């Protein structure tokens, strides 16, 4: 009998675990996969390993070089502490798999396995930090259509490290800023009676121009080395990716397939069309044209895309490209949506939800997320931060749908928002939600709808959540509640 009971309990436990695990699978990662936990060891060793080399005889130059060097270390360690990176297995393993191929085939260039970071930023980018460290943004993983595109970005960043560009950049800057010529140039500004600002600006621009020109030259070099790394690894090289990168900043210009109102109706959030039309006077909806309505090339995240494409076209290899797994991209997008939510960028988070719906990637998690975002908006409104979390963008950088959404968020009447938030939390889909999702919902409901809140109550709810669901990603939001 006792054995039977034990078996039953074990079975229930296993079923519960399985149920929890399957629910968890729909969430974008876990708390302990965020960098503060998952890169804790690397963070400790970074400070020991990253020792500034003595390169300059001139004391001032060495001092400045050391300051640059240390600020880089501080920046990386702070980013780790701020959970700017993640180590979600599915995503990390996918990227590190590509990195493995590149490293294994290029032993002559890459002696040690690089330290890889998956940056949670939605910006379509990757970057090299020197000292064999590279990072790939979630935004790039969401943007890429083929495995080979990520390989190209990684190879390009590895090439920067191989060529020593990050380190050289710090060296050059230290030398420049301590050079007699530069100091005298700046000091000479004081000798002139008129036009001091223009003269100083010119000197600074001269420096920036030389720096930018240098950077562009570095990009060319890195592109060339990247093709070698890819060839050695037998990975196809598709220069068309450079052309696609030209539109990397346009994600919020992507129009929705249906009206914003229809998406809201599907989510059982009652809205009125009038809220999506600007009710107040203002220059924002006037036809101004100081800029031409397009992002200038120099302001883009990736300038010179067309030139780079044309230059690299002869090196294209005609192998078949491997499409990214749809499930992986959906995970990446979930992660971006969560990250935007937790960083109080609610319009962008909600818009990406709707874009996911257009792509057919809309599961129970997305519905719960829509409810969290709406409640986040109400929470911000109560804390006098609705404007900040909407993060209003100028109309030239967004689609008409995005404009409608941000206008609606801005004009959603407070009482109606409260009612909608409550209704969101009473929807049937919460029955399928995992325990941690329901618990997070309860905490948000307490913050939003309890008239007289006690800090002790919030503390105890926080503690209870952390004890019960220590690995839940929602802890990240809960930790921010003061």
């Amino acid at each position: 009998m006792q054995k039977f009971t034990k078996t039953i309990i074990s079975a229930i436990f296993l079923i519960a675990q399985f149920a929890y695990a399957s629910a968890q699978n729909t969430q974008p990662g876990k708390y302990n996969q965020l960098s503060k936990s998952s890169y804790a060891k690397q963070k400790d060793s970074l400070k020991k390993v990253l020792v500034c080399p003595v390169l300059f005889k001139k004391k001032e130059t060495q001092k400045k070089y050391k300051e640059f060097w240390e600020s880089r270390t501080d920046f990386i360690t702070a980013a780790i502490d701020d959970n700017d990176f993640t180590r979600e297995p599915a995503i990390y393993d996918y990227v590190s798999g590509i990195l493995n191929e590149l490293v294994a085939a290029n032993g002559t260039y890459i002696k040690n396995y690089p330290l890889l970071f998956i940056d949670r930023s939605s910006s379509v980018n990757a970057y090299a930090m020197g000292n064999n460290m590279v990072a790939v943004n979630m935004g790039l993983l969401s943007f890429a259509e083929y495995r080979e595109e990520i390989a190209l970005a990684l190879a390009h960043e590895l090439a920067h490290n191989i060529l020593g560009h990050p380190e050289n950049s710090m060296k050059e800057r230290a030398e420049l800023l301590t050079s007699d010529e530069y100091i005298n140039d700046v000091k000479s500004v004081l000798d002139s009676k008129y036009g001091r600002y223009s003269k100083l600006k010119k000197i600074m621009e001269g420096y920036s121009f030389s720096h930018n020109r240098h950077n562009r030259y570095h990009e060319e070099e890195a592109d060339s080395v990247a093709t070698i790394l890819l060839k050695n690894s037998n990975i196809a090289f598709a220069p068309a990716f450079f052309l696609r990168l030209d539109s990397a900043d346009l994600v919020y210009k992507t129009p929705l397939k249906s009206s914003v109102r229809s998406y809201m109706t599907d989510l059982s959030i009652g809205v009125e069309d009038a809220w999506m039309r600007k009710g107040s006077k203002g220059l924002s909806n006037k036809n101004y044209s100081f800029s031409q309505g397009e992002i200038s090339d120099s302001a883009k995240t990736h300038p010179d895309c067309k030139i780079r494409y044309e230059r690299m076209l002869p090196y294209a290899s005609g192998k078949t490209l491997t499409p990214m797994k749809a499930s992986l991209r959906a995970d990446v997008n979930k992660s971006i949506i969560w990250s935007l939510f937790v960083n109080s960028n609610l319009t962008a988070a909600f818009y990406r939800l709707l874009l996911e719906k257009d792509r057919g990637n809309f599961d129970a998690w997305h519905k719960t997320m829509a409810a969290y975002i709406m409640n986040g908006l109400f929470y911000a409104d109560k804390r006098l931060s609705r404007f900040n979390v909407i993060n209003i963008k100028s109309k030239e950088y967004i689609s008409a749908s995005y404009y409608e959404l941000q206008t609606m968020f801005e004009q959603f009447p407070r009482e109606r928002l409260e009612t909608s938030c409550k209704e969101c939390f009473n929807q049937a889909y919460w029955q399928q939600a995992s325990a941690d999702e329901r618990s997070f919902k309860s905490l948000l409901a307490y913050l939003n709808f309890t008239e007289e809140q006690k800090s002790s109550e919030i503390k105890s709810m926080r503690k209870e959540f952390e004890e019960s669901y220590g690995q839940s990603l929602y802890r990240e939001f809960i930790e921010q509640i003061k």
Partner: protein
Amino acid sequence: MTRSFFLTLAAVCITMFTQAQSRVFKQVSEEISSDMDAITQDGAVVGYVVLTKLEKIQEDSFNYKLSLMDENLNDIGSISMKDINMNLMSVAFEQDVLCLSYYKSTISGASFKNKRQYKEAKEDAVNAIMNQFLSLDGKIINTHTFSIVSKATSARGGFYGSTGKVFAFAGLKNGGRVRNIPGKGFCFLYGDDEKSELFSYNTHGDLLWKKDLPRHYSYEMVPSSEVIYLLCANEAYRPMDLNRFSVLDGAKAPVYVLQDKEENKFEVLNFEMNETTGKPYIAGSIVKKGDKYSYNSSRGVFKGYYKGVYSLTLDGMKKGDIKENITYWSGGELKPEISTRGRIIENDGVPNFKTATQDSMGNTYFAGTLLQRKLRTGTVIASVVTLPLLVVPAWLLAGSGTHKFRLTDGVVVKQGNKGSLTKVQTLEKPGTAYVSAKTPMSVFEGLNEYFTIYDPATKSDVIVYSTEKNYGIYSISKNKITRTIPTKVAKSTLRVFGAKEGHIMVVENNTKEKYTKMSIEAI
């Protein structure tokens, strides 16, 4: 993170560079100054403009950058200009054109090595106004510049002029202000040492007409599409004059003096366009005739300094186009809860109104704080006890009076479009400390802040009022307090200002962590 990473590196560069060359940066930045102003249309904020004086490029010439932002503080664009020393005075917007008004002076704000140099500069001084018309593609479509008369004054630097340096000042008697004329163009007025003038422009910046104005202490201007209404203030105890000019040709209508038939003065609490009717209105309190006190004391207010409230709806040039709605406490149109001396019976206090607003039906709402009085029992008993001494009770009573006064709750009173008067809401506020009878009401100014904001969602105004612990937002259409905002959150102090329609600007200042945050929030 990439951008921020490189930005951080750049910031480090600049910081270090700044440290190394701090003197250069300090001196260059000291030459840079900025004027910021809200861009308005029909009284609503539609954007912001910043004029930055970057540097001196010749003896009398500077480089400027004019930056425009929309109502959400997002950048729209900027233009560069070269000109003599100038300040931005006022900006308005109409039909995709901005009209910016500048005061230009070669002498105002300048410093001179000695008096001789100052005298020379004074003789050659240029003082002018420039009205600039800017399209939304950043092109200056027209400019109207004209000389003004402004006598420079000076002050000598150091202790009793020990440095020998001379600082010059010049300016306008009435600062220039520009307003849009709905659907037509712009009007502009100013007053220099010799005259005051009113100009009318179309949206191309062409001057349509110009009028000399009678000299007054100050002016307020609200244009409708047909008439420019100009409220001219005299000395504090004299009633204001309302001048009206036809938008078409500047023809002037007879002056309307803001007083009733018994010459009781109309004190102005609000003069603005009614957004829903498109007609301007003036509303305020009626002050007892002959009261020449420059301030209204607590006792004065309680004893009938104010005789009632009024509103004037402005609808044209003819005499009958000013529709008066006057309600006296003693007029008999009052609900029983307001006494014939203006005391709100339920709250036991006399209102000291600070703002007023009109709805689409022509009803006017007045908001202010109630003044309460209390018998000084101790003083009265002491006076009675010391009565045989004659001098002592007289001294006691003359010193502090028989009553003491304080401000308590706020109140909203509705004046119906036919003159009825009803108290519609009490705005809970903590009572102040008691003050003596002669204390001027101005001592309560900081605790008695009220202003209105138009809410396009309800097509009516809300009244924002402050207490020691929070700001309250009262909705006229809903007749309830829709929001309260604490003035202190943790270590931060919050202040609330008007912003774009339907919004307030919340400025959070944290002195401990040394930051100031700004947010534009829905009302």
